[in-house]
C-alpha cells in the first residue's frame, strides 16, 4: 500500500479515537470552547489529509461534519444530542471507510449522500433557534435519521442498538451493509476473490438490502433483483445461503439480532434465523468467537484490527531516554567484563556472556529505531508539486536525488515543514508560468530539484529551481518600504546581501498573495527552524536563472561508525565514513614519511599524500607521543585525500554523536563528542574542520586562487604566493599556481647560448632569467640556487632566485599597481612589501609572450576553465596543475557559485566538476548546470578521485564528456 495512505490510516485511527472521547464529553459540556476547538481541528486535519490524498468519499463526509462543528464553534448552532449523534455517525462512517481503505488500499465504493444530507440539514439550521432547527431536521427528506436520540459512544462499527434508530442506521448504513455483503460472499464461496460477475451479485445484494432496510423494497422486488444479478454469474450461491451468511456477517460485526431479523424476515430470510442470531449474539457478547468461526475466515474487521497493532507511535524523547539508559547499560556490562576478565572459572562467566550479547543486540536495535531514509520526509512532495502545478497553472518537474540518505528521525520531522514550505515557494514564486518561461527562452516545464547527501558529518540538502530567481532590486525596495532597512543600507548592499533579506521576517517578494504563499511569513521561519536544530541555510540566486538553497544539518544525534585512534595518550574518534584506509608508517615499513620544505608527505601507490600530524594540529603534548608506532589514517574530504598521523589505531565502534558543549562549539576540528565503552568521553574529529584548520596553520596549503578578472568579488579572492628573494635580495612573490616546479641548480649548469642564459631541462633548453630583470650573473662556489620553473604546454622558463622564503596565502588585491617591468604589483606579505612578479612579462622576454600558452592578462579565451570543487585541498592541488598546463582556472566552490559566474556573463571552454563519491551526482550536477543556458555547449568533465575505473564509470553519467586527459587525472 502507498506509504502515505498507511500514514494517513494510522493518523486517522488516532484522531478518531480522540474524537470519540471528546465528542462524548462535548455532549456533557456543550459550552466548552477548548473542546470544540480541538474537535474541529481534528476533523479539519482529517479532511485536509483526505483532500491531499484524493480520498473524495472521506473528504465529503468530513467536510459536512466540519461544517456542523464549525457552526457549533461559532455559536451559530446549539450543541444538541441529535447533532452530536449525527457527527458520531459521520465519524463511524469515516472510520469504516478508512478501515476498508486499510484493508484494500482503495476507498470502498458506496454512497454517503444520506449521511451528508443529514449533516448538511443540521448545518443549514445554523443561526436559527435550536428548537426550529430540530424540527427542520425532521422535515429534511434525505435525512431520515435526524431525530435520533443520544447514544453511547460507539465501540464497534455497528453499535447502534437503540430501537429509535432507523433500520438502516442500526445496520451501519450502506457501508455496513456493503461490508456484510462482502463478508457473506466470502464465507459462502470460501474465497475473497471471484470473477467480475461476482461484483454484480454483491452489488445487487447490497442494493437490495439497503432498499429493504429503508423499507422501500418488498420481498418480491428483492427476489427479482437477486434473480437478475445471479443470472449474470453461473456459480452464484443461492439467495438463501447468501442471506444466511449476511446474517452471520452482521452478527460478527456486532449488529443487534433484532435489527438483523427486521431486515431479513420481510425479504424471505430463513425463519430459523432469529434463533441462530440470538444465540450467536449471546455467545459473542460473552466474548466467545463468532459461531461461524471454524469454517469461515476471520472477518475483514478483525484483520484490520490486528494490522493496526503493528506500528505504534513513540515519542522521540522516550527513544532518546531509552538510548541513554542503554548506553549506561553498555558501560556497566563493559565494567563487568573487565572485572571478570581475570577469572575464567567464575560462575558469572556464562550469564555475563549472555548479558553481553543481549546488551549488544539491544543497543543495536535501539540505535536503528532512530534512523530513517529522507524519502520519508519527501514522500509527500511529488504530490504536493503536482497539486501546486494544477493550482498555479504551471508545468513543474520535480527531481529528487539521494532519497536513501538516512537521517535521524527527529531531524527529519523537523525539516519536513521547512522543506515543504521551500518547495511551495519554489513552485509559487520561483517558477514562472509556461508563457513567461517561453518568453524568456526557457523550456515551458519548470524544474525543481531536491538532492540530499551526507557530507562531512552533516546532511546537505539542496533545493534548486530554474525559475526567475531573486530580484535583488525588488527585495531592496520591499525591505525599504517595510522599514527593514534604510535606503542608504539598501544602496550599500551587495546583491548577495540583499538576497539574505528574504530570511527576515515580514518580507515576501511575491507580487500577489496567493493561496499558496506570499504572505511574508516563511523563509524566516524556515531559517529559524533549521537553525534550531543546529543547521544552516545558504542561498544563491541569479535573477532570471533560478535559486539554489543549501541546507546543512549537522548530525546532532546520530549514530556513526567511528575509528578510535590514540595520539599522545589521548583518544579520538574519527568518522569511519571519511576514512579510506590505514597505513602503517614506521621506518621499517614500506611507507615512510618524507618532508618537502617541512611539509610531510607520504608516497602511497604512486601518489603523494599530504600528511597532517594530529599532535601538531591539536597541540598535544609531544612528550607523551609514542614514536615506536605510527599510523596514518587516510581520510577523504569531498574528493581530496590526506593522511592524519596518529600513534595508534584501536578499533571501530558504533558511537553516539553528542553535540559539543556550547563553549567548545567554536572548535571546528570536532563535530561532537561521544562516550566510549569504558566510560571515557572523547571528541569526534571532523575531517572537514581538520583540513580547514590545517590549511590555516600550515602556510597557504589550502588556498584559493585569485581570479584576476574578479577583484572585489564578494568571496574575497585569495591567492597563494611563493615568496622568494631575487638575486639582488629583494623580496618577490610569484603566484604559486603558475610555478610548475622548483629546481635547485648549481652555477656550472648554466650555459650561454646566443646571448641567453639557459639550462638543460627535461632534454630541452630552458631560458633562465633573473627575477629582477637583470642579466643572470654566474655565481661562484658550490652553492646551489633555487630555480622557479614556469611551464606552458611543453615550454619552460626558469627564474633564478637567491632563496625561497615562504609560501603564504594572501588577499589577491595588489596594493600598488606594477610598473610594467616585470612587476604585476606590490603586496604586503607578512608585514613586508613584496613585489608580485608578472610572469607574462618574463614569457615575453623569451619571445613566448603571445604564443600558445598565455597568462591571464593576455586573455586567451580558449584556455578558460571552470573548476567546481568544494574541497579546498583538491583546489590547492588541481588548480596549480591546471594553471601550470597553461589554463586559466576559475574556481567555484559549489554549483551555486558557478551559476553566479554564469550570471556575471563569464564563459568557459571546459567545466570540471568534482563528483566526489555521490552516485548520481554527475547527473544532478548536469541538470543543475543546465540552467546556465550559455554553457550548454561547454564540455563538462567529471573528476573522481578514486580508481580510474570508477571515475570513468561516473563520467559516463555525463553526456558531454570531454575525453581530455588533463594533468589532474595524473594527479588523481
Amino acid at each position: 500500500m502507498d506509504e502515505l495512505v498507511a500514514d494517513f490510516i494510522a493518523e486517522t485511527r488516532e484522531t478518531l479515537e480522540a474524537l470519540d472521547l471528546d465528542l462524548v464529553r462535548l455532549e456533557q459540556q456543550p459550552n466548552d470552547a477548548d473542546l470544540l476547538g480541538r474537535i474541529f481541528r481534528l476533523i479539519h486535519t482529517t479532511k485536509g489529509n483526505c483532500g491531499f490524498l484524493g480520498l473524495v468519499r472521506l473528504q465529503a463526509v468530513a467536510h459536512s461534519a466540519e461544517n456542523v462543528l464549525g457552526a457549533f464553534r461559532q455559536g451559530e448552532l446549539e450543541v444538541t444530542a441529535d447533532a452530536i449523534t449525527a457527527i458520531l455517525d459521520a465519524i463511524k462512517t469515516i472510520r469504516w471507510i478508512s478501515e476498508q481503505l486499510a484493508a484494500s488500499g482503495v476507498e470502498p465504493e458506496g454512497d454517503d449522500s444520506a449521511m451528508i444530507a443529514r449533516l448538511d440539514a443540521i448545518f443549514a439550521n445554523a443561526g436559527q433557534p435550536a428548537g426550529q432547527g430540530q424540527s427542520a431536521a425532521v422535515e429534511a427528506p434525505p435525512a431520515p435519521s435526524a431525530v435520533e436520540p443520544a447514544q453511547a459512544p460507539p465501540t464497534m462499527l455497528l453499535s447502534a442498538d437503540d430501537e429509535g434508530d432507523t433500520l438502516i442506521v442500526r445496520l451501519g448504513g450502506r457501508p455496513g451493509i456493503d461490508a456484510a455483503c462482502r463478508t457473506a460472499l466470502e464465507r459462502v464461496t470460501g474465497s475473497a476473490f471471484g470473477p467480475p460477475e461476482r461484483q454484480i451479485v454483491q452489488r445487487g445484494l447490497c442494493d437490495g438490502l439497503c432498499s429493504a432496510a429503508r423499507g422501500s423494497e418488498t420481498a418480491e422486488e428483492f427476489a427479482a433483483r437477486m434473480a437478475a444479478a445471479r443470472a449474470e454469474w453461473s456459480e452464484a450461491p443461492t439467495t438463501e445461503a447468501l442471506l444466511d451468511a449476511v446474517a452471520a456477517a452482521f452478527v460478527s460485526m456486532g449488529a443487534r439480532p433484532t435489527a438483523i431479523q427486521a431486515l431479513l424476515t420481510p425479504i424471505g430470510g430463513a425463519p430459523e434465523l432469529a434463533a441462530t442470531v440470538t444465540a450467536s449474539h449471546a455467545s459473542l457478547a460473552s466474548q466467545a468467537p463468532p459461531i461461524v468461526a471454524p469454517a469461515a475466515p476471520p472477518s475483514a474487521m478483525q484483520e484490520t484490527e490486528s494490522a493496526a497493532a503493528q506500528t505504534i507511535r513513540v515519542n522521540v524523547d522516550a527513544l532518546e531516554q531509552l538510548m541513554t539508559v542503554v548506553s549506561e547499560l553498555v558501560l556497566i556490562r563493559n565494567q563487568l567484563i573487565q572485572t571478570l576478565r581475570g577469572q575464567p572459572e567464575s560462575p558469572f562467566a556464562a550469564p555475563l556472556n549472555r548479558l553481553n550479547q543481549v546488551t549488544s543486540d539491544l543497543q543495536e536495535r535501539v540505535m536503528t529505531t532512530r534512523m530513517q531514509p529522507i524519502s520519508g520526509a519527501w514522500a509527500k512532495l511529488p504530490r504536493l508539486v503536482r497539486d501546486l502545478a494544477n493550482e498555479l497553472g504551471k508545468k513543474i518537474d520535480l527531481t529528487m536525488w539521494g532519497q536513501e540518505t538516512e537521517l535521524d528521525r527527529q531531524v527529519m520531522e523537523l525539516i519536513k515543514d521547512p522543506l515543504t514550505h521551500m518547495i511551495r515557494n519554489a513552485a509559487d514564486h520561483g517558477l514562472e508560468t509556461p508563457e513567461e518561461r517561453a518568453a524568456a527562452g526557457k523550456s515551458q516545464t519548470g524544474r525543481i530539484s531536491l538532492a540530499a547527501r551526507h557530507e562531512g558529518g552533516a546532511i546537505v540538502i539542496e533545493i534548486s529551481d530554474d525559475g526567475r530567481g531573486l530580484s535583488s532590486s525588488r527585495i531592496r525596495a520591499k525591505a525599504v518600504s517595510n522599514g527593514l532597512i534604510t535606503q542608504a543600507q539598501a544602496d550599500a548592499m551587495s546583491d548577495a546581501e540583499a538576497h539574505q533579506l528574504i530570511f527576515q521576517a515580514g518580507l515576501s517578494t511575491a507580487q500577489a498573495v496567493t493561496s499558496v504563499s506570499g504572505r511574508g511569513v516563511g523563509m524566516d521561519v524556515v531559517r529559524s527552524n533549521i537553525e534550531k536544530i543546529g543547521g544552516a541555510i545558504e542561498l544563491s540566486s541569479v535573477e532570471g536563472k533560478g535559486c539554489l538553497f543549501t541546507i546543512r544539518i549537522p548530525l546532532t544525534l546520530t549514530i556513526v561508525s567511528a575509528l578510535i585512534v590514540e595520539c599522545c595518550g589521548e583518544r579520538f574518534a574519527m568518522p569511519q565514513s571519511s576514512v579510506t584506509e590505514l597505513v602503517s608508517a614506521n621506518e621499517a615499513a614500506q611507507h615512510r614519511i618524507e618532508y618537502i620544505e617541512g611539509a610531510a608527505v607520504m608516497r602511497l601507490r604512486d601518489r603523494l599524500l599530504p600528511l597532517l600530524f594530529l599532535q601538531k594540529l591539536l597541540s598535544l603534548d609531544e612528550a607523551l607521543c609514542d614514536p615506536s608506532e605510527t599510523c596514518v589514517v587516510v581520510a577523504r574530504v569531498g574528493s581530496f585525500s590526506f593522511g592524519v598521523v596518529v600513534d595508534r589505531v584501536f578499533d571501530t565502534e558504533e558511537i553516539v554523536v553528542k553535540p559539543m558543549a556550547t563553549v567548545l562549539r567554536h572548535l571546528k576540528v570536532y563535530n561532537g563528542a561521544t562516550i566510549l565503552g569504558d566510560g571515557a568521553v572523547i571528541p569526534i574529529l571532523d575531517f572537514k574542520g581538520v583540513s580547514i584548520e590545517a590549511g590555516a596553520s600550515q602556510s597557504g596549503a589550502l588556498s584559493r586562487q585569485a581570479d584576476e578578472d574578479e577583484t572585489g568579488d564578494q568571496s574575497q579572492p585569495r591567492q597563494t604566493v611563493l615568496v622568494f628573494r631575487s638575486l639582488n635580495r629583494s623580496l618577490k612573490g610569484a603566484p604559486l599556481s603558475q610555478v610548475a616546479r622548483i629546481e635547485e641548480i648549481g652555477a656550472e649548469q648554466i650555459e650561454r647560448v646566443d646571448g641567453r642564459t639557459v639550462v638543460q631541462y627535461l632534454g630541452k633548453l630552458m631560458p633562465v632569467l633573473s627575477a629582477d630583470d637583470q642579466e643572470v650573473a654566474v655565481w661562484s662556489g658550490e652553492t646551489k640556487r633555487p630555480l622557479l620553473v614556469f611551464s606552458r604546454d611543453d615550454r619552460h622558463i626558469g627564474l633564478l632566485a637567491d632563496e625561497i622564503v615562504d609560501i603564504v596565502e594572501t588577499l589577491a588585491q595588489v596594493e600598488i599597481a606594477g610598473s610594467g617591468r616585470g612587476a604585476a604589483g606590490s603586496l604586503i606579505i607578512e608585514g613586508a612589501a613584496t613585489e608580485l612578479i608578472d610572469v607574462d612579462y618574463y614569457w615575453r622576454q623569451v619571445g613566448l609572450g603571445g604564443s600558445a600558452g598565455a597568462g591571464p592578462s593576455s586573455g586567451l579565451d580558449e584556455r578558460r576553465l571552470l573548476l567546481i570543487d568544494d574541497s579546498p585541498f583538491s583546489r590547492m592541488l588541481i588548480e596549480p596543475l591546471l594553471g601550470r598546463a597553461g589554463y586559466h582556472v576559475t574556481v567555484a566552490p559549489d554549483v551555486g557559485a558557478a551559476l553566479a559566474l554564469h550570471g556575471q556573463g563569464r564563459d568557459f571552454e571546459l567545466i570540471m566538476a568534482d563528483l566526489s563519491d555521490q552516485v548520481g551526482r554527475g547527473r544532478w550536477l548536469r541538470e543543475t548546470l543546465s540552467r546556465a543556458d550559455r554553457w550548454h555547449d561547454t564540455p563538462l568533465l567529471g573528476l573522481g578521485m578514486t580508481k580510474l575505473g570508477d571515475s570513468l564509470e561516473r563520467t559516463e553519467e555525463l553526456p558531454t564528456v570531454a575525453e581530455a586527459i588533463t594533468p589532474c587525472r595524473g594527479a588523481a
Partner: protein
Amino acid sequence: MTVAARVEEDLQGLVYVRVGDGVFGVPVMQVQDVIAETWINRVPLAPPEVAGALNLRGRIVTAMDLRVRLGMPARASNQTHMCVIVEAASELYALLIDDVGDVLWLNQDQYEPTPVTLNPKWRAVCQGLYRLEGELLLVLDVDNVLKIGAAAHGSP
C-alpha cells in the same frame, strides 16, 4: 522547612563552595548534583578554562575549572577537587572547585551588590554577595561563569 517554603520566605539557597582562597555560593536551584573527584577527559584546543569532559550517567558534562576561570593559580597535582554539576541551556556543566560545604539559606538583608572595586574577572561572574560571619560569600552567576566560549569567540 521544605525548599518551597524557604523559597517563599525569600531566602536564597546557595551551595557553599571553596575555590582557592575564595568562598562562593552557587544558587541551589541550578545545581543538579555534586560529585567527588572523577576522571576528566581533556579536550585538546579547548579554552584554558575548560578542563575537559566527563561522563555523568551517560551524559556528557563539560568541566569548567573555576580556579582558571577566576584567574587563580592552578591546583597542585596532589590536591583533590569536587564537581558541582549545573545545567545551563539544557547542557550540563561541571564546575571544578576545591571543596564543597552545606547548602545555606540566606536572608535578603544580608545581601549586598558586588562592590565596584572587585577584580573585574570576579565581578563578571558574581551576582552579589552575602555577609556571613567572618567571611563574605560571593554569589556566582552560573550563566556568566559559562560565558567563555561565546565571549571569546563570538558564537552563541
